[in-house]
Every structure is written in structure tokens, then in C-alpha cells.
């Protein structure tokens, strides 16, 4: 049975595509965005997260595993030694320990997603997200097919940085692609995500040619990717596409600090304010002036 590692199943997801949805977040990503909102989803392997604000330093976890130590009222954790077996998560009375990257089979995932099927009725459905779900294209294909057989709308939330073959596999079973667009300039893209955008832009063109419904998602962060130049370049690139139903502008928030800390990754979140609704409105105007239609401000 095909399986994949996942980090979470989000029910009543109302911002991952139309209507009420359930979103499955798979683990592993091919980009390393500095503003990553889900740092726990980037590495393919399982990781233990410690939600420090919840930890009371009671020491229960230290009793079951030497990786945890409470020294002078501080919770010290030896991540190098941790095998991410998840045992300690059972012992924590305050729910401060969480294992990201448990495996799930297609059947298990399908069963979970179907639990909320009655809510998908009015235009909702399921969304596969991540990380980058298409790194698990086999799993996604099987799962989306099952959903399609059940008459459920399936969306894929992708950063686009995967071989085209991955898209090809899921294409017949996907109703909507939520496609991240970080910035048009390749160099800048490399700086912001650790990777150029050639493949991403190429895939987007190919996807557009398949006539699949695409919604572009642009997360805008001040001083990073929302200068007028950035927006104009993006607008010019996106204007000619035929099957983009909407370009949704999302506002960057530096709210993931605690998550970086929880999984022990170096915190790369840029220290810039979150754009407000008017700022996004102005960005939307610039995009429209380049001939892009249907720009949606997610803050309105």
C-alpha cells in the first residue's frame, strides 16, 4: 500500500481552496523559503517538535528518553540523538511534544478525508498540501483518484518546483491547482527560496495548456517580493495565462517563530511587518494594471 509522511490533517480548512475542505499536509519540500510558514514540513524525515510555550518542564519526557533533559528549569533537547520514534509524546501531560512525519497509507488518508464529506457539499472538497505534496505524486495520484471516485472535489496546493511528470500523474484526478508564485525574477527567487524559478514557471505554462483550473497564490512580504518592480514583473508574466481563475494575495506574517524553534531549524523569518488590507489592495492595483484579471485580496 502506498504511503507518505504527513504533518497534519486540518479539518474545516476554509482558506485552502473553495468552500469547506479538509487539508492533508504532507512532509518534505523542495524549496527553502526564508518565510516558510510550515518549517516542520520541509524535511522529508520525521521530526520531534517541542512546543516550548506549553512545556512546564515537568520532566516526564526525560524519564522515558535521554534526549530530553531538564537542567535548572530549562528543557534541553539533544536533537542529534533523537530518532524521532515519538515515544516521548505519549508521556507529556501538557501536550508540548508532537511528532511530525508519521506515515499514512492512501486508504487511511482517504478514510480520514471522507469523515467530513458531508461538509464538502456546497463547493468544498479536499486539498493536498505540504510541504510539497507532489514530492509524493504516487500517493497523491491514488488518493485523488479515490476522492474523484467518491465525487469529491480535489485540490493540490503546490510550489511548482517538481518534475513535470509529477503534475502529469495527478492531472486527471485534480480539479484545482493552488499554485504558489513567489516572484518572477530567477535570481531573487533563488535568494528567497534557495532555488531558481525556471522549472516553476515552465510547469505553470504547461499546466495552463492543460486547461486545468489554476488559482495563483502570492504571499507578499514587504522588502522581499512586493516592490512595484516585483509586482509588475509578476503581473506581466501572469497576464497571458488563460486558465487562472484568480490570483489570491496573502499577507506575510512573522508568526511562525515558535514553529522554527519547535523543530530546531535556524529561524529565517524576515523581520518585516505584516502587510495590511490596504497594502494588499495597492499591490492588487499594480497587478491589474499589468492586465491581470481577478485579483483577490485575502484580507478583504
Amino acid at each position: 500500500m502506498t504511503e507518505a509522511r504527513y504533518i497534519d490533517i486540518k479539518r474545516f480548512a476554509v482558506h485552502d481552496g473553495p468552500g469547506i475542505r479538509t487539508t492533508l499536509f504532507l512532509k518534505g519540500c523542495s524549496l527553502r523559503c526564508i518565510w516558510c510558514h510550515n518549517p516542520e514540513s520541509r524535511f522529508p524525515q520525521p521530526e520531534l517538535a517541542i512546543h516550548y510555550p506549553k512545556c512546564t518542564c515537568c520532566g516526564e519526557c526525560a524519564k522515558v528518553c535521554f534526549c530530553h533533559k531538564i537542567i535548572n528549569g530549562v528543557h534541553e533537547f539533544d536533537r542529534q540523538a533523537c530518532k524521532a520514534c515519538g515515544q516521548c509524546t505519549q508521556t507529556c501531560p501538557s501536550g508540548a511534544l508532537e511528532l511530525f512525519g508519521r506515515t499514512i497509507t492512501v486508504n487511511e488518508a482517504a478514510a480520514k478525508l471522507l469523515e467530513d464529506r458531508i461538509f464538502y457539499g456546497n463547493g468544498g472538497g479536499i486539498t493536498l498540501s505540504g510541504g510539497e505534496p507532489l514530492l509524493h505524486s504516487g500517493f497523491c495520484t491514488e488518493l485523488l483518484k479515490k476522492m474523484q471516485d467518491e465525487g469529491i472535489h480535489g485540490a493540490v496546493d503546490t510550489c511548482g518546483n517538481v518534475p513535470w511528470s509529477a503534475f502529469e500523474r495527478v492531472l486527471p484526478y485534480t480539479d484545482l491547482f493552488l499554485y504558489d508564485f513567489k516572484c518572477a525574477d530567477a535570481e531573487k527567487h533563488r535568494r528567497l527560496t534557495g532555488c531558481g524559478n525556471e522549472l516553476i514557471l515552465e510547469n505553470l505554462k504547461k499546466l495552463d495548456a492543460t486547461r486545468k483550473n489554476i488559482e495563483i497564490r502570492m504571499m507578499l512580504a514587504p522588502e522581499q517580493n512586493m516592490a512595484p518592480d516585483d509586482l509588475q514583473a509578476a503581473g506581466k508574466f501572469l497576464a497571458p495565462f488563460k486558465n487562472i481563475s484568480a490570483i489570491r494575495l496573502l499577507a506575510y506574517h512573522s508568526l511562525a517563530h515558535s514553529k522554527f524553534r519547535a523543530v530546531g531549524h535556524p529561524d529565517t523569518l524576515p523581520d518585516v511587518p505584516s502587510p495590511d488590507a490596504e497594502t494588499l489592495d495597492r499591490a492588487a492595483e499594480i497587478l491589474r494594471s499589468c492586465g491581470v484579471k481577478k485579483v483577490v485580496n485575502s484580507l478583504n
Partner: protein
Amino acid sequence: MKNYAKFDELRPKLEKQYENAVYSTEDCRTEDQLRQAWETHKKENPDEERILSRAFLIALILRHAPVVAEPFNPFPGKFQTFGLLQEDLKAGYKLAAEKVPGVICNGIDMDLGFNWMVDRSHVAPDWKNLLTLGLPGLIKRAAKGTSPFHKAVLVVYEALAEFCRRIAVINHNPVYEEIAAHAPKTLHEAFALAYILHDAIEFSGEEVRTMGRFDSLYIDFYRADLAAGRLTRESAKELLKFFWTAFYARYQGKRFGKNFCFGPDINELSYLGMETYYEMNTVDPKLSVLVREDMPQDFAELYARCIRDDRTAIVSLNYDVVVAGLIRHGRTPEDAATFVPIGCYEPAVAGKEISCSGSTHIYLPIPLLSVINSGKDYATFEDFKTGYLEQIRKISTLMQEKQTLCDLAWKYVNPVPLLSGTFDSCMEKARDISDAGALYNTTGCVCSYLADAVDSLEAVRFLVYEQKLCTLPELRQILKDNWEGHEKLRTAVLRNHAKWGNNDTQVDALAVEIASFVSQLLFNLPNGRGGSFFPSLYGQLVVERGKMIGALPSGRLAGEPMSKNMDAVIGMDRNGITGLMNSVLKVDMRQFPCGTCLDIMLHPSAVRGDDGVQILVSLIRTFIAHGGSGIQFNIFDAAVLRDAQIHPEKYENLQVRVCGWNVRFTDLDSAAQETFIRQAEAIA
């Protein structure tokens, strides 16, 4: 319509009209004179039937008490009662104690877990009759009878007509002259008549809990006014604002709120009313919307938008499910179809049923404690559960005994001819509402705190029978200790993910079993008014009652609030609202003809924008389409988030939208939480 100043300008004044009321001194008697008249009457008629003496007093006040009838107010008519009606109500209770030996008119037994009372707060007149017959019609009808009841009705309605004429003079308002003289013809007259009767009934000691189906009751008046050029759509909205504010003014939004019902047939007035409600942004009146699958999408969006934008005093009820439940419990299909909620969520056949829906309560977790405290041993969980259900049966019998006496006492406590005179059945039977005059004389039994009961039952299974972490006697001690010294065990229970409200097969089956059991138990259980008990499934007064309830096996500490309505215990619906709704939908709501309700809490970001309105509509429609009944919403605000910062353990299910994703509020660090709080404050 007479010309009034703009509603917006008058609103502050109207809202404070009771505080600043200046009563007229002309055309009325002083307190002393009124008291004297009342004393003389009692002396001269020592053996008068209760209903006649009550009618005399009401009439005396309507005819001669000082009134306020400010000319700026299209719905004037406050009157001064000098506490006379209240005093006489006390006398009524005294009389009841003499006439019905052993009666306790308002009792509670928190050891066994139930209460009972003479419920004077769940009635409504037959609005349709009132508006069609008008006061003269009602008077004519009463004059045909010869019974003391008919006489009482005649006395109060003639006095009410006189009261209208008094206002007409002081207020220089022909509307009041008109409604004294004939059935209402215009929207203003119809509103004025409904308001006058409502107020008079309330002053006579019964709480009118619904103003009926707003859109269908008033549509003909509205259409006629439009056709005749008496009103425009805008001036009708203005009139409605005045009308609704009259209700607000009475309690300033500090009581139950006056219910106006919308649907299930949606017409122009439904839209007008809902728009007006949005514009007013008030806590009182409150609305209930009877939802059927064919509800037009634009109307669904209109009222969902109210809810989304903080006008959350709206409950949606599933029309088809309620009707089916009423039919199952002996109402004819034609009668069931006309129901209105005669309380927060409690359906009753309009103009034919008095539900007394708040008469009795069974506090479901308490019998569980009784079983644990009994010292009896139960070999298996099944045995234990049976013991629990049997204990519920036991208290239901006691409850029936106590309540039956209350049912018999009502007619001595407070006959209500002002109300009964609108009921066809009362006029035919020559009996007051309080004396089983309605066609359907129901006694409500509110089965409360389901989640606490279910989670506790499940905890007993977990602790005593499955994991064997403690024995029943040990559990008894633990609860006596209020879990002190047993923190680890408590954590184990709290962390045990089997809780009501998470779409968990095993736990939900327990809930379904308890619900079916109590519903069966009460099915056709006779009350003291020739009707029967009707169960409902919701829980209120969660803080007040919580203070009276000891520690529970669920891990709840003594004194903590109880679970609300059909909700999970606070913080225990860890799978979010879809998990909660999936659990709740397993209960057959038709088993609860006296109502059910689920409360959903949402973060404003989940319902932002036009998409957010659609999300709300989807939630409501999904719930309704799958057999749910009452559902209402809370959109969290900053104050709640602030509390969540201090008590994160209570808000584990609160999710927030960060950007293109959601996180649990409690997983954010405090700086991030602060950001959200500021955002929430900005929305407010």
C-alpha cells in the same frame, strides 16, 4: 403614518424610555385610589374565582393607572402598576399552596439532579387570531360565553381597548383609536396591537417568549400599505426599527431577548426584516430562522452576513426536523407545520400549544455521581451504565410527581385571560391557559449537560473497566477529593482522546444511547395538565449550575462551568467544528420535540469576506441537510482571545488563520498571540 422624527436621531431616547419615563397625572388614579379600589373589590368578593379577581385587577390598572404616551414614540403605552400585580402574584402562590397540598412551586434537588417549577416564562398568544380578529373581535367572541373564564376575558379585553383609547388621546395618535375600534388594517396598527398585548401579558406576570412568525404574520399588512401608498420600503424599515426598539427598551438587552421568527416561507418582508436587523445591530430582539432546504440562497446569505458581522443573536432551526419531531409526538401534520419557537429553541404549535418548556430539568451528570456514591459494585461497564440509566428513570418519576403538582397549581398562581382569550381552544373549553385550556398542554424537560455526562461515563469505562487505573470506590474518593492528589490520573482522563464532540464512534454511541433513553423515558409521560412531558436537549446556566455540581469522572473539577447545549466540554472538541457537528448529527433530533441546540464558535478570520458568508451558509445548510436542528454561532472577539492567553488549556480547539494556513491559537508564542488580539480589537 404620522410623521415621526428619524429613528436614528430618536434611538437613544427610545432606548432609555423606561428609565426616563414620566407618567401622566391626568386621566388616572393615584396609587392610593387604586389600592383602595382593589381592597374594596376583594372585600366585597371574598369567594371570587382566582381568574376573575386577577382580571379585575388587570382591568383596574389598564383603565386607571398612570401611563406614559410620548408623542414622539410610535409605540408608546408604558403603564405604572405600583407593584400591585406583583403583590397579587405572591398571593397567588400562597393560594396555590393551600389548594394544592404538597406543592413546591419552584424546587431543585441537586443531590439527585433535577428541578421543577411553575413555569411562567414560556407562553405566547395566538398572534394570528389577534391580528385577524382585533380587539373588538376578541371582545365579541368573549361576550358570547357565560363562564367565569369568558367573563374574565371580556373584562380584560374591554379594559385593554379602553387603554388604547387613553393612549390615543394622550399620544394624539389615531392608530390607537383604530385598534380599539376594529381589527388592524395597516402595518403600524398591527405592530401597535401586538406590542400592546405583549406588554399587557408581561405585566400580568407571564413572559411572552415569541412574537410569532414575523414575515408571514405581517406580510399582508405590508403589501396593503405599499399598494395604498401609506408606506414605502424605506419607511416600513423605519417603522420596524421603532417597533423592535420598544422591546429592547424594556430590558436593555439584559434578559432573554424577544424572539421574532422568520421563515420557512421567505417573502419580501423576510428580506426587509433581516436587512433592518443588520442595520440596527442590536442584541434584542433575537431572531430564529426556520430553515428548509428550499430557502433562497440570497436570503441565507443575508442572515449569515448578520451572524458573521457580530449580529449573532440568531438561531437556525431545521423546519422539517422539528415538524417531524412534533408529529412523532402526537401533533397533527397541519398543527406541527405552524410551530414557532416559544423560548430559545423550543418549538410549540402556534396558538394551540403552551409548552412550559422550562418547567423541569434533568442534570444528566448527577445521576452518574449518585450511582458512584451508592457504594454498589458493578462487575462490568455495561452493568454500570445500566445502573446509571436506571437512576435517571428513578429521578424522572420523582420529577413527574413534583411537577404534576406545579402543573395543577398554575391556575391558582396566575391565570392569564389576556393570553387565553386569543386561543380558540380556551374559548371552546372555557378554560384558561393555566388551567389546561390549550389544545396541547406540554411540560418541557430540559435534559442538560450531555457532554459532561457522556465524557464522565466514558471516563468510568476508561479508568475503572478498561485501563483499571482505579476501582469504583477509589473513584468515589477521588471525586470527593475534587481530584486533589490524583493529578496524574486526572491528566490521563483529560488526555484520553475519547470525548464527546470528536466524531468518535464509541463515545458518540454512548451519547446516542443516553439521548434515546431519556427521550423514550419521557415519551408520553403524562403531566398534570392533561398533556405530556416533552424532552429537549440543551444545557444552560452553565456557570450557575456548575457551581452547584461536584467533581466529575470526566476530570471536571467541582464548580467549573458545565457544557453548553449539545456542545463538547470546553476545549474537548479537539477535531474542530466538523468533528463536533459529526458527533452531534448522530443524535436523532426528532426525539426532542422541545428543542435542541448546538453552539459553534468561529474565529472571525474563518468567515471573512464574501467567501466567509458562504462558509457560514454551507455550515448551516450542511447541518440542516443532515438532520441537525438548532444551531447558532459565536465569532470570537479580542476579549476571548485574551482569556485564551491566560487559560490556553480551555481553548485548545481555537484555530487562527495566519496566512495561507491555520494554526491553533495556543501554539503561537505570546507575541504572535498579541498580534491576533490587536487584529481582533481592530475588527471590533
